[in-house]
């Protein structure tokens, strides 16, 4: 008898747990849907506004989808040279930075992996120091200026090309490559260069892809270095130009060059809202990242795990 009631009670509590747990599941699913909307809505709203008519934007009626569709903003943005020039320069900075970054980092990390390398300790210390001390904005700016690098691509590439943290992550990754492979190559008479470029590099493709994509995206999104070092409007990357269009008084028409007058008259007649042009540029700035996003996503989980090895 006693055993039977005990059993019944147990089933009851189990049921209770089960129901409570189910309710939690449902609530969680709904919460996650809401959260996903929060993540995605700002993008949808910006795209919708960029495609809507002046009067609809003015009354604040645009939310999920464009109202009274107009593509005027995109026509202006893609019809002037400003965007293409900005794209070209940004791409140049991204590729240049990534190449210098990857080659310098991958080489120094290899030397640090070799336990018999006599300068391993001093070089490691040189790297470590840069993780904790930095000269700060102004001394770096003065240095770049005195080297005559202002308004050149080198100001965008060189100052931050080597980060100690990355070197240590590369080193951790290299350590996962079996030593036997290196020893075998050495017995066959291969030098360090052959081993690094011929054996390590092919094995490190996922590492290079991860860090390469990340440094590309980081450079694409950065504006502060360009704000410091690139004063020449014709060499400025896309983020800096977008900043001028969004936040500077009169910055929109001056940034768009020849189309400036078209924007002015369009706004005056009510056929165009400045946001049409501004948000079309936002979309044009985000679009390349969204195109490579699937690749990014494939690699960055790996990248985080590589990074975690060190931590």
């Amino acid at each position: 008898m006693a055993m039977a009631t005990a059993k019944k009670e147990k089933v009851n509590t189990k049921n209770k747990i089960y129901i409570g747990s189910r309710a939690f599941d449902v609530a969680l699913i709904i919460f996650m849907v809401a959260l996903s909307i929060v993540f995605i809505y700002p993008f949808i709203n910006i795209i919708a506004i960029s495609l809507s008519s002046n009067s609809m934007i003015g009354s604040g009626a645009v939310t999920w989808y464009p109202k009274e569709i107009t593509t005027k903003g995109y026509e202006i943005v893609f019809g002037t040279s400003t965007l293409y020039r900005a794209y070209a320069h940004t791409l140049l900075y991204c590729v240049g930075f990534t190449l210098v970054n990857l080659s310098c980092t991958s080489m120094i990390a290899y030397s640090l992996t070799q336990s018999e390398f006599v300068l391993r300790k001093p070089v490691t210390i040189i790297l470590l120091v840069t993780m904790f001390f930095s000269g700060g904005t102004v001394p770096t700016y003065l240095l770049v200026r005195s080297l005559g690098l202002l308004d050149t691509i080198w100001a965008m590439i060189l100052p931050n090309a080597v980060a100690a943290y990355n070197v240590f992550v590369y080193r951790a990754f290299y350590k996962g490559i079996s030593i036997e492979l290196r020893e075998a190559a050495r017995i066959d008479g291969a030098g360090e260069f052959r081993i690094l470029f011929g054996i390590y590099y092919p094995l490190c493709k996922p590492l290079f892809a991860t860090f390469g994509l990340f440094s590309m995206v980081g450079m694409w999104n950065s504006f502060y270095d360009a704000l410091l070092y690139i004063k020449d409007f014709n060499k400025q990357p896309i983020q800096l130009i977008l900043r001028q269009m969004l936040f500077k008084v009169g910055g929109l028409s001056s940034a768009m060059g020849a189309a400036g007058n078209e924007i002015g008259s369009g706004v005056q007649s009510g056929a165009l809202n400045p946001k049409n042009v501004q948000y079309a540029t936002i979309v044009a700035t985000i679009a390349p990242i969204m195109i490579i996003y699937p690749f990014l996503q494939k690699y960055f989980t790996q990248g985080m795990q590589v990074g975690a090895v060190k931590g």
Partner: protein
Amino acid sequence: MRADKTVSKNTKENGYTTKRSTGESLVHFIKKLAGQWQLLILCIPALTLLIIFKYMPIYGILIAFKNYKASRGIWGSEWLDPIFQNFTRFFSGPDGWNVVWNTVKVGVVSLIFTYPAPIIFALLLNELRIRWYKRTVQTISYIPYFISAVVVVGMLAEFGSMNGLFNQLRGLVGLDPVNMNYGAAYFMGMYVGSAVWQGMGYGSIIYLSALSNVDTSLYDVANIDGANRWQKVKHICLPAILPTTMVLLILNTGNILSQDFTKILLMQNDSNRSALNVINTYVYYFGIEQGQFSYTTAVNLMVSVASFILVFGTNTIVRKISPENSLF
């Protein structure tokens, strides 16, 4: 000192002269290095860049104590008298303490919200049982991370405007619309909110990977013991991510003073500039825009020192509480 002692000890015992043994080891060292010339060459590009662009600016900090004149260079410029003039000027001026307070406030409030958000998000995601759904939410949640500060601030300006999203939401609960971009009243909410929005999904990756390493048999054992879901989270999931949370706490605390000032720089306008200045934006305005190089270098140096102390301080505390979770 210690090397000297051993050498002299050797001299006594073996009768070798000191000179010969150090000379020998130097020759040995150079021979070895010559044999490793390829390894040395592989270091040179990175070392050159580091020495020029990281070490030279550290030397450049000297101008914090000098009256820097570009024509006379760093070394040639005159020393200040009194030498800490720039530091005292910052704190005796009208802005100094205000800027420090702003910096600390933005840093601490950000930490309070942006640090736990990814942890909670990861734990919740971990409770989602439908796999494809979990993966979809994850994919969506990472997207904001890859958006630039310029675009995010552009979005904030849109949503904070009189008929933007935030005011539409305020309208739902019966509040009057306000222009949130004007003045500093709504700055903190927008700054921290957007930081959480951007970082929550991406920050959760590292916790999720820690959670995926949990031995699944632990859950089975817990089920047999009749543990409910909260108990499983408390006794299995939380211990699994504890080391990660500790490391990230140290890193985030070290970053308190170096918040994303580029975003603040973008959010500033004429109506709120002085109220929103943090140390890094202050350095930008007075240093780069106005050319007060020595003064702002001094201000920046104080932040670097304070950040350094913060990182070591938190690490020391963590090391005392649980040594295995400390960073160094």
